[in-house]
């Protein structure tokens, strides 16, 4: 049984900001959805199904928000799903939507992921103290910073490795009008002098808290053929999960990430990601995750991730730009961030990334999202050409 081909035929996203006080929740998602529909040359009545993704309901204090959003997203009379896979949700939502087309069940699917986390506070939302659970004394960064230290020990990476990423991604974001943080003046010295929050993570090594939404229209082969703008074909999609905690778990180079990458590369015919891809949008919420994920995703040998970053391989003008959009370090509406990664690589291979367009040689790019205790992974490879 072969899967039906599926393509991204429209992409839309909001201006990601620390708080979008000008819109309601519906207004926020609508903004991204309308742009995606227009890009796809469609109206609401063309859409067969809607798939919404969002991180925990507590961030906005609305339970099962797809119910309230049905009217805003043209879902009335249609199938509607709401995916929630922690931080990877934006990516897994795109995958669920694409599967509806691959399965041959629908031809045109709208998918939206969002967060309006300024209505509460992301730190609070992520760490609601639960009875009988050990108290989370050190915050979100306190969970990941010890792993970063462990990575530094294993790999021998110098202290500035993470800071290089913090600079690179913020400078990339200057090319992206939709990004939340615009810091054209950022330097390595600024990052090194920024507040040391969780040693070794400094303030500028961490992501902002943003309101924002991302939307895509996914279409079948027939729909792609009739699309008004270039499309991005899905060459491979995969998801993998592992438990949060178990004996001898490697949280720094998680098996689920490796397995997920191997699966998506196999589907997409990628044998050397650094060579076979034009760029990647990778979920890096703390700067050090770039060197760590370079290894986890097979862009280099284990222990060498920091060297790739230091060499400038992942810079905008490097041979394998990572996060040309500015990445999670520049915009982080938590529920949307995974879909922003997936949508941004679609834009890249469509040649539609505007000021942050990279040069296309292979016409393929990798989108990645992760969540939970580095345990949920969602990835896709998109290409300018239809897969064979």
């Amino acid at each position: 049984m072969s899967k039906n081909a599926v393509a991204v035929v429209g992409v839309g996203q909001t201006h990601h900001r620390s708080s979008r006080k000008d819109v309601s929740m519906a207004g926020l998602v609508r903004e991204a959805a309308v742009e995606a529909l227009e890009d796809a040359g469609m109206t609401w009545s063309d859409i067969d199904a809607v798939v919404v993704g969002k991180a925990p309901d507590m961030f906005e204090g609305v339970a099962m928000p797809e119910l309230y959003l049905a009217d805003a997203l043209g879902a009335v009379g249609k199938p509607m799903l709401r995916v929630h896979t922690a931080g990877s949700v934006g990516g897994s939502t795109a995958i669920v939507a694409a599967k509806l087309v691959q399965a041959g069940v629908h031809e045109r699917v709208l998918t939206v992921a969002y967060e309006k986390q300024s209505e509460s506070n992301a730190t609070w939302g992520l760490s609601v103290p639960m009875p009988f659970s050990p108290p989370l004394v050190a915050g979100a960064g306190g969970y990941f910073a010890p792993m970063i230290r462990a990575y530094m020990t294993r790999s021998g990476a110098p202290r500035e490795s993470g800071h290089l990423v913090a600079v690179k991604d913020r400078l990339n974001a200057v090319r992206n009008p939709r990004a939340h943080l615009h810091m054209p003046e950022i330097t390595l010295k600024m990052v090194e002098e920024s507040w040391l929050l969780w040693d070794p993570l400094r303030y500028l090594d961490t992501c902002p808290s943003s309101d924002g939404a991302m939307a895509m229209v996914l279409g079948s082969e027939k729909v792609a053929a009739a699309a008004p703008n270039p499309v991005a074909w899905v060459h491979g999609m995969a998801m993998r999960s592992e438990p949060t905690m178990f004996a001898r778990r490697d949280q720094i180079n998680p098996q689920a990430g490796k397995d997920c990458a191997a699966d998506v590369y196999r589907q997409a015919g990628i044998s050397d990601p650094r060579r076979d891809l034009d760029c990647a949008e990778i979920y890096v919420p703390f700067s050090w995750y770039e060197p760590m994920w370079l290894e986890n995703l097979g862009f280099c040998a284990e222990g060498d991730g920091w060297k790739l970053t230091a060499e400038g391989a992942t810079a905008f003008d490097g041979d394998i730009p990572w996060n040309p959009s500015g990445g999670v370090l520049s915009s982080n509406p938590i529920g949307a961030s995974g879909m922003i990664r997936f949508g941004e690589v679609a834009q890249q291979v469509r040649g539609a990334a505007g000021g942050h367009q990279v040069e296309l040689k292979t016409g393929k790019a990798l989108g990645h999202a992760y969540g939970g205790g580095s345990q949920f992974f969602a990835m896709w490879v998109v290409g300018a050409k239809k897969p064979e």
Partner: protein
Amino acid sequence: MRDVAVVSFSYSTIAKEQMRNEVEMLAPVITEAIDASGIARSDIGFTCSGSFDYLQGGPFSFVMGLDAVGAWPPIRESHVEMDGAWALYEAWIAIQTGEVDSALVYGFGKASQGNVHEIMSLQLDPYYVAPLWPSMVDLAALQARAYLDSSGLSERDLAEVVAQAMRSARDTPQAIRSGEPSIEELLAAPYVASPLRDADIFPTTDGVAAIVLAAGDLARSVNKRPAWIRGLDHRIEPHSLGARDLTRSESTALAAKHAGVASGPIDVAEVHAQFSHEVLILSEALGVDPSIVNPSGGPLAANGIMSAGLVRIGEVAQRIMDGTANRGVAHATSGPALQQNLVCVLEGE
């Protein structure tokens, strides 16, 4: 479309589980479903679950569910913040793509931990409705009255629904409520939210449920009589209660049409009716006689929030696998006053 079947089903319920947490409730039910499926845990292609953070009052409740699955080596896995019936939908789609041939689906929640009637107020329009805090029961009562007014039926008809459910539930081990109440004693009880009385409203239930799906030849090789999914569809209505026709379930009728309910005889139906009037509204929408609806007793007997919709599919599937039915329809719902509905048609070969 690939042929996909339910090959096993297991669930448990309890009014209020004080000793075990969700993982400890889930693990034996998942193990039982996997063992009964004939498919080894490590051979299951895809796992998908449904759960609801607000039942425990903290984020990421689905993550702990994974501890009951044995997700090592890493598995293909996903989650919806919806009833397990929609997790089954996602798993069915995964099998349709050909990526996998089997799936484990589960739903769970301990509704007794909080006030679920009040928690559901958070589903409502955050600007226009939620600030007034109408509960799940208040909204159901609005629909119940609208339905009685328009249909000409009465509270006695609702009591008949309750009585039938309670009688049927006597044979269901998972029933929290069952018995032989008389219509008079039902009608003599005070209102909780007029016109609904306590017996018209589901009992608070902690519940977990698991189903294993398998495709084509795999299903035939592990199960003598798989319950084939012949139709599966779901639809949603506008959110605002005042903009909907509360006397009918339009989205159920639409989903039933797309799922092909009417293209054959229906021997058995299980509807996710959490209130007595919903049995009547949903029976009409599905085009089935209420007398064949909810032989398990339905949610009026036991209603594990986030698993009860999946249980409806399981209960129909079980009767087909047992040979007591040949073709049936299962229904699941989400949202205030039946805003969103899923319909599944199942059949023996």
